[in-house]
């Protein structure tokens, strides 16, 4: 998956409260050469302003405490050029509407095909600086 676009080895911030999903995805991304910081809840994420080298945020939608959408908004406020991928197991029309309101958001429904996700990561990474 080595492509000459500067997206073959990037910093990815991954937030998901499901340990098996988070751990397995993080390890696969690392295996593919990326640097991954993974956290089980938005509250465990370090200060967003300090995450300057993060190229993509991948976050679950429903988590204890802060929702993934609130995290995405807060992150976007600090890093307006970094794309965010929102994953969720339960898609509703109201959530769809909220995603449509946020052009920096990409939406992926669980279960997630890794190849599809990895392709999406490349796509949004390559497109982050127009």
């Amino acid at each position, binding site marked *: 998956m080595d492509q000459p676009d500067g997206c073959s080895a990037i910093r990815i911030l991954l937030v998901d409260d499901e340990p098996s999903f988070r751990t*397995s995805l993080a390890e696969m991304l690392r295996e593919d050469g990326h640097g991954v910081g993974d956290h089980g809840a938005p509250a465990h994420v370090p200060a967003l302003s300090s995450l300057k080298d993060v190229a993509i945020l991948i976050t679950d939608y429903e988590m204890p405490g802060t929702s993934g959408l609130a995290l995405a908004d807060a992150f976007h406020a600090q890093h307006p050029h970094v794309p965010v991928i929102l994953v969720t197991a339960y898609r509703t029309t109201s959530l769809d509407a909220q995603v449509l309101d946020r052009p920096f958001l990409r939406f992926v429904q669980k*279960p997630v095909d890794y190849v599809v996700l990895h392709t999406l990561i490349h796509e949004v990474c390559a497109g982050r600086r127009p």
Partner: protein
Amino acid sequence: MSEDKTPTPADALRALRLQEARWQAILGTARDAIIGIDLTGRITLFNHAAEVIFGYAASEVMGQNVTILMPAPYREEHDAYLATYRATGVPKAIGRIREVEGRRKNGDVFPMELSVSEARVGDDVMYSAMIRDVTERRRAEHALAESEARHRAVLDTAASAIIGIDEGGKVLSFNPAAERLFGYAATEIVGQNVKLLMPVPFRHEHDGYLRHYLQTGERRVIGIGREVTGRRKDGTNFPMDLAVNDTLLDGRHFFTGVIRDLTHEKEAEDRERQLLKQALQNERLADIGAVTARIAHDFGNPLAGLQMTAQRLRQLLARDPVPVERLTQATDMIVQTVQRLDALVEEFKEFAREQRLHLRRLELPAFLQEIVTAWDQEATGRGIALEVDVGTDLPVIRADPDKLRRVMDNLVKNALEAVDRGPGVVRVTAELRKQERIRILVTDSGPGVPEGIDVFALFETTKAGGTGLGLAICKQIVLAHGGGIEYASHFGTGTVFRLELPAHGPTRRL
């Protein structure tokens, strides 16, 4: 030498004295009073036992008329009686044991058994009387009769059916309430095997139960009590509460069963269950949307995790050499996730299940102590003091022990998880409130419940990884018992969960 062969008057006197001494010894050690009188009624003999019984010294009464030992009317009649006997020779007292009254020196009148015999020595007539003081015996007999009458009165007027059986199950007593309840007359059932009052299959099992208990001492009903089914003479069955007491008498067991008819309680219980069912059903309909979303989320996420881990396995297997340790980690992750899903399924099933209660008599102090003991290790591991303070005066309550244990386990577990790490305290207390209601408190020194959430609401949780089902199930169980549950919490001072249960179970509320 001739003096040796022919008894001298001195020898005869000696022999006579010896004889006399023997009689005196017998008279002196006899336990019955022995009194001799002459023809006119004057006392000529008064042994030691007579002194003890009547309270006179022999020297006081010798030569006195024997009537001083009699109360009225014997006292007045005796002289005339003696005169009649002297004249007619028709005895009234002689040769028979009679029960009459005696009079002690201090004036006390007492019951005694009297037998009189007549002795004639030449023309001399002497009457001797043997007297036994039966005061104690009478008193014991009276006490026994009184106690029997009292017990009989209790049995006869008791609202509960009371049935006594022996070791073989044979009915020994069957009180009027039992007659009314079962429709048998006592005369029909006494002597029969008690299993006649039970429907099949209990009827066939009872002899075995009794034998098993007598052999092993292992209790199923005795001293515990339980709900069973009784069978009336007309063949109809009815629910009843049975408490059995075992009394050991002369090495043999006697069992007393106290029975309360639960027919009306059951009917009330059914009515209440129906109402409750309806309420829960309505609540459920409203919950269906939430349930669907929750299932999609709670099951969708671990499933997506499993799918991702499977892809991770595929990635690892493509490597050469295959990294076995990482492969093991990934498969462990699968196993753990599946276990979590399985637990979740169980919890959903529990929630979906109707809360049908199996009510038993429950000793609350022991029950709560047992709960707390089970959590001791967990508390110690967290450095939290787990305390229990339960009054010993709590009544036995009617509740479903398994269901109530689930509630208490949940509350104690939540409290421990709220404190998380010591130092901290979790305390379980129980007290009897007004109107036979039991209040159980589970208090923790944790951070308190955040405002604006209802912890009993379905899927509401403050815990990472919590399903929000636990307390919702607890509430269902408590409501089914006819009780209530609430909590008070203030930020920083901890939380107290208040559980109230009716001591008599759910039925008394209607």
